[in-house]
């Protein structure tokens, strides 16, 4: 029996002191001798052709790069390999990178006039009218027609969600340094091996060795998952041509204008119910706006589709999902990865079902929530750790939901709830394909953990060290965590999909146990002193019960699910139509909180980000470009917009996770938006889309009977 000394304790963060003293070094804090600054010249039309580039400045001291300078293949490699690193001729969206400049003086660099001649063509902005489908997914369970034939009631509805900008407070930043016949890239990067692969394709055989090193990263939320690969390539191309280090840092406007956002979605539901409120047929259509290139849309769509029926049991389900091309900057990874959009749809729909059938919203959910042994839309049987009912009942009790719902009736206050679930790790056989690896090596003072999992604020270094410390039976302080440097660490897969604790943490736990067995009675430091270096690399092992059919989308979509329920209280200002959240109760079941304070921080932060998604964060698109690309008028929650957050963590251990842990990072972003909109519904306002900004609430209120 392993003694838990670090796991379950809120031990000091490994990176706490550096961050509290300002000594932590982020990409823009680094300087190299002879370093140049880089600038990206971008398209200004959403669709068309580049016909000419005009320079009206003295090029002395400038390095200029266009697509002809790419020694390898002009593509930012990912899933579809459709996105060029630099525009050759075809322009598919505003702010597409065309040309790169570098100069040692920033004023001279940004003052240099460059004009693009562009020939516009007719753009597509409406995903439903787009002629190009990136990806379709069909999930079918049971007999939909028979389900509807047996239904006593049918409820339909369409729900819409907008773009969301990540607003990591540190904008995108990389530095490329030519050294030793190779290229080293330092950057604010979530997935160093993604950037590494992209660089290898773009630089080709010309550059023998590519190395990517993550610098301290000021937030990611998915926005630094795939996007930095292109920026890394831009900096590397400038560095290659100039032979000098090149720093490429986006300012906030460029970051918001050019980089990926959360996919907007349209979700349509047609649901059959029995007289007593049981779900008997669910027909769901999901449409994601992918933007101009495929990026990760196919997998965002997949996760969105799998979560689209909510954490409910129903024998007859069809989920038809598609991701569409539009002439807008590509949408990409963002915490939640498709699930917040589809769970907004199903939870607002459930509230409308309760309303139209005259059922209590808690009872409707209780009747239909997944219990251990029930099957999901893909036919996956959920395990004994399924906590859907418990999170609902805990949240209802703790928030005083029933009492307040009665008390608020007819006032300017409303209270609403939303259920949600989130699968941990890559979908289906994704983890098997990744075959992630992690290494532990002995040192003179303990051990060092080597993974490519990045610390982006969520606490990777700390949490991994806790797992390894307890699995080895050594003090937490004796575990060092290596910097993610592709030249040093093995590929542990990307830092995404709520997988860093559950999946990579589990590999580390098993690897530590293997080392423990080799050490006998010695401590790691003693063994190192007597026998010298020892390093063990572990690899992901898929639980043997997992079955997944990629073609038919049947089977065990995720190794584990975490469960949540949010209750949100709001207040409406009837003069301004502004809705403010007043109090939020969050109950999340996460298997095991390795570090309770970090876990709570994830839940609080994800909830705040979800409240912004629900009420404040509106990306205004004009002619395919974000019109409010600055923090003055793209509003994220401040201290005054974020209400009291009451968080409860429940633990139903998952046997395949380290010490029982499931994924947590994304779960809390799924709940706030539908809970907010369901609270607004109690005010008699039929809102079916987000962000529910005052204009939208007013419009809905005036349209509501």
């Amino acid at each position, binding site marked *: 029996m392993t003694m838990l000394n670090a796991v379950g304790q809120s031990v000091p963060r490994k990176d706490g002191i550096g961050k*509290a*003293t300002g000594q932590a*070094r982020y990409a823009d804090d680094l300087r190299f001798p002879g370093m140049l600054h880089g600038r990206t010249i971008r398209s200004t039309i959403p669709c068309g052709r580049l016909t000419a580039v005009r320079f009206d400045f003295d090029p002395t001291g400038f390095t200029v790069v266009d697509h002809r300078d790419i020694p390898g293949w002009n593509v930012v490699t990912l899933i579809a390999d459709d996105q060029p690193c630099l525009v050759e001729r075809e322009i598919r969206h505003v702010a597409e990178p065309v040309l790169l400049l570098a100069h040692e003086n920033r004023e001279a660099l940004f003052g240099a006039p460059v004009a693009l001649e562009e020939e516009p063509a007719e753009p597509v902005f409406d995903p439903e009218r787009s002629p190009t489908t990136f990806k379709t997914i069909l999930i079918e369970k049971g007999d939909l027609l028979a389900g509807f034939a047996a239904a006593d009631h049918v409820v339909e509805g369409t729900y819409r969600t907008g773009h969301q900008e*990540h607003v*990591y407070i540190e904008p995108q930043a990389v530095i490329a340094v030519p050294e030793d016949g190779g290229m080293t890239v330092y950057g604010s990067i979530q997935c160093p091996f993604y950037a590494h692969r992209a660089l290898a394709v773009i630089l080709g055989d010309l550059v023998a060795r590519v190395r990517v090193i993550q610098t301290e990263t000021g937030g990611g939320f998915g926005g630094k998952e795939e996007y930095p690969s292109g920026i890394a390539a831009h900096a590397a191309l400038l560095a290659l041509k100039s032979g000098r280090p090149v720093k490429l840092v986006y300012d906030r406007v460029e970051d918001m204008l050019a980089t990926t956002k959360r996919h907007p979605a349209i979700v349509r539901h047609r649901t059959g119910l029995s007289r007593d409120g049981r779900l008997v047929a669910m027909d769901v259509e999901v449409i994601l706006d992918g933007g101009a290139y495929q990026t990760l849309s196919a997998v965002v769509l997949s996760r969105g589709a799998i979560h689209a029926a909510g954490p409910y049991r129903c024998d007859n389900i069809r989920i038809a999902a598609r991701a569409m091309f539009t002439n807008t900057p590509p949408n990409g990874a963002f915490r939640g990865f498709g699930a917040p959009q589809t769970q907004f749809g199903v939870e607002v729909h459930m509230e409308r079902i309760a309303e139209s059938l005259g059922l209590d919203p808690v009872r409707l959910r209780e009747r239909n929530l997944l219990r251990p042994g029930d099957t999901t839309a893909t036919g996956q049987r959920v395990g004994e750790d399924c906590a859907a009912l418990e999170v609902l009942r805990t949240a209802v009790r703790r928030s005083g939901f029933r009492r307040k719902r009665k008390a608020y009736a007819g006032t300017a206050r409303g209270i609403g709830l939303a259920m949600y679930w989130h699968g941990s790790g890559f979908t289906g056989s994704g983890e098997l394909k990744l075959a992630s690896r992690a290494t532990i090596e002995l040192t003179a003072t303990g051990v060092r953990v080597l993974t490519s999992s990045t610390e982006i604020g969520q606490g990777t270094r700390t949490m991994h060290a806790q797992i390894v410390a307890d699995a080895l039976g050594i003090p937490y302080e004796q575990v060092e965590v290596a910097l993610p440097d592709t030249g040093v660490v093995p590929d542990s897969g990307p830092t995404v999909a709520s997988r860093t604790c559950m999946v990579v943490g589990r590999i580390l736990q098993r690897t530590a146990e293997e080392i423990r067995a080799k050490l006998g009675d010695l401590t790691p430091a003693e063994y190192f002193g007597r026998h010298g270096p020892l390093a063990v690399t572990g690899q992901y092992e898929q639980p043997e019960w997992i079955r997944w059919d990629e073609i038919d989308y049947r089977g065990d979509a995720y190794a584990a699910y975490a469960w949540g329920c949010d209750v949100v209280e709001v207040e409406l200002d009837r003069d301004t139509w502004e809705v403010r959240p007043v109090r939020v109760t969050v109950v999340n079941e996460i298997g095991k909180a390795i570090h309770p304070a970090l876990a709570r*921080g994830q839940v609080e932060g994800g909830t705040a980000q979800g409240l912004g998604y629900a009420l404040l964060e509106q990306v205004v698109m004009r002619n395919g470009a974000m019109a409010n690309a600055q923090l003055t008028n793209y509003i994220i929650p401040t*201290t005054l917009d974020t209400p009291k957050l009451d968080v409860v963590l429940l633990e139903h251990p998952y046997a395949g996770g380290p010490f029982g842990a499931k994924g947590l990072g994304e779960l809390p972003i799924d709940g706030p938006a539908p809970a907010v909109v369901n609270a607004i519904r109690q005010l008699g306002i039929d809102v079916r889309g987000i962000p529910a900004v005052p204009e939208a609430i007013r419009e809905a209120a005036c349209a509501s009977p």
Partner: protein
Amino acid sequence: MRFTLNAREVELNVAPLARLLDVLREDCGLTGTKEGCGEGECGACTVLVDGDAVCACLVPVAQVEGAEVVTIEGLGDDHPLQRAFMDEVGAQCGICTPGMILTAITLGPRPSLAKIRRGLAGNLCRCTGYEAIYRAIHRAS
């Protein structure tokens, strides 16, 4: 240009309209002051000028002539707020943390939650939902 920076007199030959942020980061090598937006919205570049929290991205360096400027580096490494931010996990990604701590200093002793919320309204954090930051400030006071 002469001013007091972290309790030391400094004399710099810089353009008077240069942003204080750039002067601190590039000419003085103090990179603990961060740039998040460049338009005074996010507060990541907050420093103290004569005891007031200001956004260094909005201040031309000429304005601090003769003033007392304090950056995160001026607090050393053992300030009660720094310790409290570590203990309460008030820092996640850490990019807003220097600005948060400097603004928190201006709140005075034992600030109420309402005072903290008002005082920090110009400092954006995308990671924490602010709750852990409140816990840290309460703990330090």
